[in-house]
């Protein structure tokens, strides 16, 4: 499912003394099954943009198009709005804070149970969602309290709660913030799985440029509510100066690649911003110069 953001602008408190431009003329297109990243410093409008994508906020001008659904400044109502929210799942920052039910099963199944589905269907969706986030789906686990889990597990339960609505597009606001390295890696492995196995379209908001570089095909950098940079991730991170002007630092790998490029050490452009791709792109140094000085 393709999502298109077309010249979107958003004002907070329009017409009042508190009026503030949160987004100005932002355009973005994420193809079916692709992964896009939205980066930017705090207050640049990332979360506002995320909330426009599933109709929590209504644009002041411009539109958001998801297949046949179009969110315009007139807003969407009733069934259409619910349908938009069903298609576009949104995982908020620190989503473990939204868990409420006494058991994991109830919490993950909350969304589907509101859809007037049959009990078995709700159960089936709950188990599927838990499997999708690499958690157990057996009876014993479903009956446990979500508050007894570790931080990383709770976050994955929250993600399962969004996935159980079976969205085709998932927007994740800082999915790895505040997690330890292991839990972080698990979340990102889960996201990669969701993309390859379930064909979901992902939009990830992140502060962690390394993760963005490893995960996203395209990257959109926001600065003061405007698009500062946009395009394929590696091309975006090659524009070191523009990235830094947006208040961000390119990921270390992009910095190494830039240095290697400047010193003429690349035999080809790396195919992606991963350690392997970069290593492959480097001109192999003659073996003897490595450590040769030491020996001599």
């Amino acid at each position, binding site marked *: 499912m393709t999502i298109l953001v077309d010249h979107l602008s958003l004002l907070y408190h329009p017409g009042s003394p508190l009026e503030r431009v949160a987004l100005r003329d932002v355009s973005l297109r994420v193809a079916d099954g692709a992964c896009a990243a939205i980066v930017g410093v705090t207050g640049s409008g990332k979360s506002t943009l995320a909330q426009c994508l599933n109709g929590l906020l209504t644009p002041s001008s411009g539109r958001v198009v998801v297949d046949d659904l179009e969110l315009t400044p007139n807003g969407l109502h009733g069934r259409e709005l*619910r349908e938009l929210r069903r298609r576009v799942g*949104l995982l908020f920052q620190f989503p473990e804070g939204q868990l409420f039910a006494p058991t994991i099963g109830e919490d993950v199944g909350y969304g589907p149970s*509101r859809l007037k589905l049959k009990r078995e269907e709700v159960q089936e969706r709950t188990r599927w969602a838990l499997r999708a986030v690499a958690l157990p789906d057996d009876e014993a686990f479903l009956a446990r309290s979500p508050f007894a889990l570790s931080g990383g597990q709770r976050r994955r339960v929250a993600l399962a709660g969004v996935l159980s*609505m079976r969205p085709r597009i998932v927007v994740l606001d800082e999915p790895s913030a505040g997690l330890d390295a292991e839990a972080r890696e698990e979340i990102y492995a889960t996201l990669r799985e969701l993309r390859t196995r379930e064909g979901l379209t992902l939009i990830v908001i992140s502060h962690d440029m390394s993760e963005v570089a490893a995960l996203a095909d395209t990257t959109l950098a926001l600065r003061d509510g405007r698009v500062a940079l946009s395009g394929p991730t590696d091309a975006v991170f090659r524009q070191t100066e523009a990235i830094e002007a947006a208040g961000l630092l390119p990921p270390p790998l992009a910095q190494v690649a830039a240095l290697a490029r400047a010193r003429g050490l690349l035999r080809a452009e790396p195919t992606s911003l991963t350690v392997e791709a970069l290593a492959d792109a480097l001109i192999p140094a003659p073996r003897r110069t490595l450590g040769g000085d030491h020996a001599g």
Partner: protein
Amino acid sequence: MLDNLPVGSYIPRDTVIHGLRARTKLLLLCWLAVAFFVANHKRFHYGVYGWAFALLLLTLSLSGANPGYIWRRMRVLFILMALSVPFILIWTTGATWRTLGPLMVSIGSLTFPLQIVVTYDGLWFAVSTTCIFLLLYLGTLSLTLSTTPVALAEGIVLLLRPFRRMGLPADEFGLMTLLSLRFVPTLTQETNQLIKAQVSRGADFTTGSLWARARGVITLVVPLTEGALRRASGLATALEARGYGVTGEATMLHEGRMRWLDWTLLVVIPLITIAVYLYL
């Protein structure tokens, strides 16, 4: 969704009223409240209420409040008073003022005469209660409009200090007031965020059966409570880490001094009120 929350209605301005100490405003408000209930005993004597209306309207206009804003705040109160006044009129006993009826009322096959007696006491009670409520509301409104929550907490602590010797934990009260006021905006923001998060995963707080809506509210209450408890325990640790409660008595970093206008008002307003009560 929660943009109309009445708490934290402080409007930053630079006026005479804003410049008064919170203590002055609190004391005068208490004084007026006492005066209203004393004046209540003098039947059909409007002097004190008239004087208080004039005073509070002057205060509000001096504090630069927008009349439309005040009206919006007061609307609910008017509805509440309009609903309660008929009951006061009907059910207060005393010397008769007017009699309505007897009317023949029939419920089903039962027919009985109904007579409504409005007494002088009932009339005065209705009028004075309405006045007192309106005045107290206007008074509190002008206090919160012109005083920051921090200044308000400071005022409460300073007024309660003399009672420390009697074992009243004045500083603790102050800190509690301050902390609860401090977290109102945080909780509002958190609730907003939570509503959005739950709506994103299928919750609906506006349609559906009563049971479904009640369940919707549970999805907010549980996480909010959990978050508030976690924050409270974190805050307690942070306060202790910074030495709270080790040395006992706390002092204030910025203690506002009373100025001549504060003292003048504290003397003049009660004197006028007493004069109005006795001689008007």
